[in-house]
């Protein structure tokens, strides 16, 4: 086909029509910061797969997923069916990189909101940038309590956070004590960045307020090549319960070192992260039988929303959905729902819609009692249960109304 004067003239109005269409459905750009390389990359990629799945669910009609918000329609109905587009940024496990990621997403990619960033210390730095620029930032995954204690206006958190876990663990241990097992000597082994430090402090604070004492606290660097001194410290102190607040590589080394040094604490609680990383179970699951964990997600009964979402995720990845992926997915749903309710991509409108969020449990993927933010931006209806590694999966064992398997103690290793 040759380009004639006439065809050029015809092309001009055609282009104008195309442009109008594009404007009508301009995609809503969201920035998502995750560790896609570095020591937590396995978790970051698993989360990315979950979010990519949700983008598909929101952008295309999935009527079978009702009552999940935005699933039955395509795009965001109140924004003329605008599609969601996620721009990914790799934080490389570094708070400084996460900070510059946030800056780039806001100033160059002009995202309307930010999500992320897995490691609490990176959420801390990247959300500070969002606060300065007045862009809403939602974390569905980072749990350090200081994140919502900064008096930020633009920061929201859907996941349960450290003080709630502290209560969960001690409620659970009180229940174990009733079964006649000793639980008074609690040791905390935590990695020494914001995540580990904050969760350890919250547990210690809770214990002190309830007249209990933490028996032993060990702080370490998650990138260590060797954890045997820590395990030897535990072996000589003989605690009843060890709570690990660890990332993936270190959790794997602890399980291997338990085996080498022939020591097994009677009760092991892993605070999610490392213990929930999909590669933890595949690489050392056989050395970690009976490890307890917290989870805000359970696959649930056939026909439930959590069950259907797991089926889709499993079809896509070959793995079951777990807590570490389901919580960020829940956060992402809350953000997209808020933008839709705002009916606008203006930051202030989105912020107001987020603050007014009131999502009932029936619309959730996770087991939260709902999503409603307090003044600090924390979802006060967030909720977790205790799970235990039995075979190749974590199964809910406590509280009794969520339990689907019997608690098996002690930790077998």
């Amino acid at each position, binding site marked *: 086909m040759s380009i004639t004067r006439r065809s050029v003239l015809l092309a001009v109005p055609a282009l104008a029509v195309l442009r109008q269409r594009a404007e009508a459905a301009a995609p809503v750009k969201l920035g998502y910061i995750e560790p*896609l*390389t*570095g*020591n937590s*990359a*396995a978790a*970051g*990629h698993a989360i990315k797969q979950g979010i990519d799945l949700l983008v598909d669910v929101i952008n295309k009609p999935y009527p079978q997923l009702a009552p999940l918000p935005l699933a039955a329609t395509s795009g965001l109905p109140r924004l003329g069916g605008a599609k969601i587009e996620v721009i990914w940024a790799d934080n490389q496990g570094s708070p400084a990189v996460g900070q510059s990621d946030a800056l780039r997403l806001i100033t160059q990619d002009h995202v309307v909101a930010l999500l992320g960033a897995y490691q609490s210390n990176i959420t801390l730095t990247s959300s500070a940038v969002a606060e300065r620029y007045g862009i809403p930032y939602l974390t569905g995954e980072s749990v350090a309590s200081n994140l919502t204690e900064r008096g930020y206006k633009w920061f929201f958190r859907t996941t349960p956070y450290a003080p709630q876990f502290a209560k969960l663990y001690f409620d659970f241990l009180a229940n174990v004590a009733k079964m006649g097992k000793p639980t008074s000597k609690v040791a905390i082994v935590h990695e*020494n960045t914001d995540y580990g430090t904050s969760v350890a402090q919250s547990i210690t604070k809770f214990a002190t307020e309830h007249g209990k004492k933490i028996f032993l606290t*060990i*702080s*370490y*660097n998650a*990138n*260590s*090549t*060797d*954890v*045997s*001194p*820590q395990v*030897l*410290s535990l*072996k*000589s102190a003989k605690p009843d319960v060890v709570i690990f607040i660890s990332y*993936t*590589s270190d959790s*794997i*080394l602890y399980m*291997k070192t338990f*085996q*080498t*040094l*022939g020591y097994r604490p009677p009760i092991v609680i892993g605070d999610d992260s490392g213990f929930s*990383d*999909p*590669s*933890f179970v*595949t*690489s*050392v699951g056989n*050395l970690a039988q009976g490890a307890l964990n917290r989870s805000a997600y359970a696959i649930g009964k056939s026909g439930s929303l959590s069950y259907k979402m797991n089926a889709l995720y499993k079809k896509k990845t070959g793995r079951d959905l777990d807590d570490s992926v389901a919580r960020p997915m829940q956060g992402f749903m809350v953000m997209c729902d808020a933008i839709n309710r705002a009916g606008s991509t203006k930051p202030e409108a989105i912020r107001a819609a987020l603050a007014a969020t009131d999502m009932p449990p029936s619309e959730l993927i996770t087991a939260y009692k709902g999503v409603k933010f307090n003044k600090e931006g924390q979802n006060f209806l967030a909720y977790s249960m205790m799970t235990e590694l039995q075979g190749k999966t974590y199964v809910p064992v406590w509280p009794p109304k969520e339990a689907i398997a019997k608690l098996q103690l002690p930790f077998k290793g």
Partner: protein
Amino acid sequence: MILLQLAADGLLLGAVYALFSSGLTLIWGMMNVVNFAHGDFVMLAMYIAFFSFTLLKLEPIVFVPLAAVLLFALGGLVYYALVRHVMRGPMLAQILSTFGLALFLRYTALWAFSANFVSLPSGLVGGVYDLGGLRLAASHLIAGFSALLLTLGLHLLLTRTDLGSRMLAVSEDRVAAELVGVRPDPMQALAWGLGAAATGVAGALIALFFYVSPEVGNSFLLLAFVTVCLGGFGSVPGALLAGVAIGVIESFSAYWLGPATKDAVVLALFILLLWVRPQGLFGRA
């Protein structure tokens, strides 16, 4: 008993550091090229071990030599395709080129093998020996003895053989070596090959008890540089001694002062030592 176990763990950990550093010593010390891709060579060797076992059902007795052979080829290739050319350029070009190679290998691994952590089954080379409460894993012992053997072998090769003398001659003065009839390129390629092969053995043995991931080389790399510096550039026995010293110091400082302080203790001692002996323990001034 705890102290004895700490000492044993420290010694074995130190042997692993020495094992990890052996190839680096050879390339850095002999060729005067800092191989920033060293950690990623180890990572590749660990993946060779992992896939040989899981896909081809090969036993350690087969996959350790296999890793050595494959890494030898990689070392030679890296010399001919990359290092030979950048050695003509400024020092910065050498540093950046191996650094670029490191990133290339790491992100290729990330793309090809995914970011997931994988692990060989424990007890592939025997279980754990319990000597009256002192527990030693067979895999750690094998790594420790291999570090000794490898060090001894490389040391003898460099100091007692004709080939070693030629390699040293090329590293000392390329032009003078050429004048007396030693062709530098094959010698340098051989040094790279041998350094990489030692790395291959190290990686395959470390994979027996450590997790494998594309980032794994990074967690050892800083300590490997410290080990080589501390031992004295190019001194293979020095690297062994330095590795063991670092392992033992780490083990005890982690137990007594807390695990978070161990790197600070090791690096503080390292700086102190460089103050009095800038050439390292066994280095020539």
